């Protein structure tokens, strides 16, 4: 292969790359005798994962019930329909429910009222920012195109900044909902929960949507046991390096001929190619024990409602078998943690204001967002349960993966966040609205940092922003940081 020293990237920040460190899984031999720490005295690696679902916990006009908010607090809390999968999968004693969360809102029907810190505008669908970054929503103006802006880094990127340089992947960002399923408007930022701070500029960390692509990237450096397969893999890696090397070299001449705006676009493209080239140089993990290459998932499920192709107009409006996609992405995230390929992840199940068709879940053809306004509570509970079931599946997989003296779950802080709660609408004054950010719930699982497991906790009034749960989870993996305009963890989450 053509050998060439990789030049430094043009931009100061190299995206998605964990430096040139060689990644190794946590082998038994590296642990101390008790299996509780690394033999060198270092702590066991800690893992951080944010999951997100674009659901509210009530439907318009229907009062709050105990579907997602347990009727009892403490351990052994009640399991309504929304939480039932925790019982079904036997992980209730590992998952803590934090209820009573609220994102403060502008309340007056005037755009002059200040937006509270870490809060939202009266207009509901601009509130991505407080959820993903703990910053307040941008003020609504009459020329607003309703594109929610994000003004701070998301917590996975705050954590990645602190611990991401120790693994092949600084962080992984996946999304199961394959498409916006909505025409005529640009919903930028509603499809992304991960944002990084690049020298003061907040940039989207675009999630990988194709499970096939995610698979390919994750198992890039895995060397198969079979010598023939291993040789084929090595040849393929070598081919990729050589191809990218030529692509890379050809760009130099082109950049010089472009105007500044185009050059900037291409430089970003170029930086990503360089980052990929450098990932190809990283040695794969030691495969063995729990760390194994998963079976090839094959082609991705067809995209629902795509515009006409050559042969067919449409497969299934609004649904691209997100069920299969999400399961695959959960498996990939689990293996990424198991093999210590990354310690930080974000997994978006469904988008903010999701237009995914929930027919396969509820038997009624609604977009998820439409369901929240026009459907009824039992249907929403089924949709919540669908999300919770996949979160419970992740918990189950982590628990069933031995690591050291315990399980992989012991070193994790996993969260399931969602878009809205249920309560008064400041938009139209109705008592029970899906556009409320009161009575929100976040699920927490994992034993990192002594997180309390299996309890229902009502957030204390001085720390009841979903961001306070986020801060606690970050603290659990050893990262002490504010979350945008939110500060302080929830003491009840520990101990």
């Amino acid at each position, binding site marked *: 292969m053509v050998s060439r020293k990789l030049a430094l990237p043009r931009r100061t920040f190299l995206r998605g790359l964990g430096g040139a460190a060689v990644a190794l899984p946590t082998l038994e031999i590296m642990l101390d005798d008790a299996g509780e720490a690394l033999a060198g005295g270092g702590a066991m690696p800690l893992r951080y994962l944010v999951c997100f679902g674009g659901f509210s916990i009530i439907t318009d006009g229907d009062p709050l019930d105990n579907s997602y908010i347990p009727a009892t607090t403490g351990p052994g809390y009640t399991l309504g329909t929304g939480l039932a999968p925790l019982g079904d999968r036997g992980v209730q004693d590992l998952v803590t429910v934090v209820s009573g969360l609220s994102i403060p809102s502008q309340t007056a029907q005037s755009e002059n009222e200040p937006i509270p810190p870490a809060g939202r505008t009266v207009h509901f669908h601009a509130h991505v920012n407080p959820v993903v970054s703990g910053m307040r929503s941008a003020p609504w103006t*009459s020329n607003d195109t309703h594109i929610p802006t994000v003004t701070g880094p998301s917590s996975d990127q705050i954590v990645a900044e602190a611990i991401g340089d120790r693994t092949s992947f600084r962080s992984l960002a996946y999304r199961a909902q394959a*498409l916006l399923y909505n025409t005529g408007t640009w919903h930028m930022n509603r499809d992304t929960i991960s944002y990084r701070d690049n020298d003061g500029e907040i940039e989207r960390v675009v999630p990988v949507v194709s499970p096939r692509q995610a698979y390919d990237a994750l198992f890039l450096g895995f060397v198969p046991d079979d010598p023939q397969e291993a040789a084929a893999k090595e040849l393929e890696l070598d081919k990729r390096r050589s191809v990218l090397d030529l692509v890379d070299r*050809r760009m130099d001449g082109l950049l010089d001929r472009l105007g500044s705006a185009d050059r900037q676009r291409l430089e970003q493209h170029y930086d990503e190619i360089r980052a*990929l080239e450098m990932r190809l140089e990283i040695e794969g993990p030691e495969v063995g024990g729990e760390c194994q290459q998963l079976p090839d998932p094959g082609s991705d499920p067809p995209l629902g409602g795509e515009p*006409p192709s050559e042969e067919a107009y449409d497969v299934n409006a609004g649904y691209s078998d997100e069920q299969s996609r999400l399961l695959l992405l959960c498996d990939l995230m689990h293996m990424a943690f198991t093999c210590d390929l990354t310690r930080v992840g974000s997994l978006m199940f469904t988008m903010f204001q999701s237009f995914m068709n929930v027919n396969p879940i509820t038997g009624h053809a609604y977009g998820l967002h439409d369901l929240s306004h026009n459907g009824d509570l039992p249907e929403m509970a089924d949709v919540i349960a669908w999300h919770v079931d996949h979160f419970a599946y992740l918990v189950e997989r982590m628990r069933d993966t031995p690591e050291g003296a315990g399980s992989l779950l012991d070193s994790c802080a996993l969260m399931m966040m969602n878009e809205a709660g249920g309560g008064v609408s400041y938009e139209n004054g109705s008592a029970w609205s899906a556009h409320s950010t009161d009575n929100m719930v976040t699920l927490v699982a994992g034993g990192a940092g002594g997180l309390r497991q299996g309890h229902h906790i009502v957030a204390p009034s001085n720390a009841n922003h979903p961001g306070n749960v986020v801060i606690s989870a970050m603290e659990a993996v050893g990262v002490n940081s504010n979350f945008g305009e939110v500060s302080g963890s929830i003491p009840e989450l520990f101990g």
Partner: protein
Amino acid sequence: MRSSQFIGMLALGALAVTGCRDDVNATTGGTDTDGSTGGPSSGGADETGETPETPETLGPIGMRRLTRYEYDNTLRDLLGDTTRPGSQMLPEDPFTPFDNEYGTQEASQPLIEGLEVLARDAARRLLDDPPRRDQTVGCTPSGTTDEACLREFIGRFGRRALRRPLSTEEIDGYVALGLEYAQRQSDFYVGIEMVLRALLQDAEFIYRVEIGTPVDGEPGLFALSNFELATRLSYLLWGSTPSDELLDAAEAGELSHAEQRQAMAQAMLQDPRARVQIDRFHAMWMGYAQLPHPPELTNALRSETTALLERVIFDEAAPWTDLFTATETFIDATLAEHYDLPTPDGSQWVSYGSSGRQGILSHGSFLSVAAGPGETSPTRRGKWIREQLMCQPVPPPPPNVDADNPPTEEDAECKEDRYAIHAEVGSCAGCHSLMDPIGFGLERYDTQGRFRTHDEGAPQCTISGDGALTSIGAFNGPAELANLFVDNTVLEPCVAQQLYRFALGREVVQDDLPLVNELGMQLTEGDGRFDTMLGMLVAHPAFAHRREE
């Protein structure tokens, strides 16, 4: 200028109204005051041999990436690969309403990784299919390291892939890569694989790079090369990569002049790809590119509309407005039942008769657009028509309005009464008068375009179907709405603006107005044909230049 009459109809982002007045002319901007006169700077036509004229005004443009749709078409036309893999692997292109706005394109890790996997897979599929492989390679290698054959392939295929001829030095670079691996693997086609993978990840394949030649005395203005023009033509008219013939014309310098490009466009419009492209343009513009129905219904509705577009634009070469005045529609028994029309034998053109339907506005495809969940929303329908079909932006609702939900008035039993609050409350009425009356004129057609006379499940709530286009006139149903549009030339300047937006992959700006204006004039004052308008667009000096961002 006669053309200035259209500018008043155009409402651009920059000119968008910030409040709603009961007056369409509220959208008029100060367009006439900036001295724009429209049209090219020199009046003379295209005497061959003359320096091509430059546009008097031209908005800036940046580099565009192939959309997922264009990527898949391009693979198909380059390699005969019909698997359309790009749609799965490349980041989604949002419909704004068009899927090609370069402002939404960003280089990200998933993009780069996706492109790499796509290139590898495409090369493998080709090598696994010997007949297709041999056709693409074009020569039979005499041995593992047949440099002449490899070189010939790179020269010919490289020109197709990068849409311009490769220099000897560039070819050498690909030959070196290919030969090295052909030799190592003792397989000529591994060399082909390597070259393909590199070409399909090249920046000039992924992006439509336009550089051009600086125009003397016009800083920031560049005349596009013939190859860059060939690329503009093919992605506009075919949604795909230029053919060998088109590249030959570029190589011979035969696209420099307006009449040459116009003639080329006429030839390209004969290609089936042009029909698909024009169909898709209308689907995105009018909003029915993604329908929320089961596949069978979606297929039937889309086929109906495609048939009308093909008939009007291609088969009859009729004025574009015939789309809105057609008195027949192409349906099968299933759709006949859907519409309550006479059942045809197989699929046939069926007369609308006195059904109150006429043209594309009465198609189920269009009537499915902008419905609320499970129920029509007169506000959303009206907003969509006002903004997309009339090019008049309506300001968003004030922050204290929950626009996700229809008005709920406990006492009102019928939908029409519930919506009455929009007209009664002063602060609502201004904007809603621009939307609701249009939607109410179509209220007798449900979310799939079926006719109805009363609210669902409420026979006592008769739907009048009475609607109005503010300051233009009253109507009832899609036929009368279409007639109002056509009689008042409302749609022509807007579709011209939308077409130009689609052609550039960005929103129209003030400096684009002279050309947009001319295009609209073609529909109202010229022969009225859409293909003629496309020819005018590609012939215009603005099409042959770029202004740097």
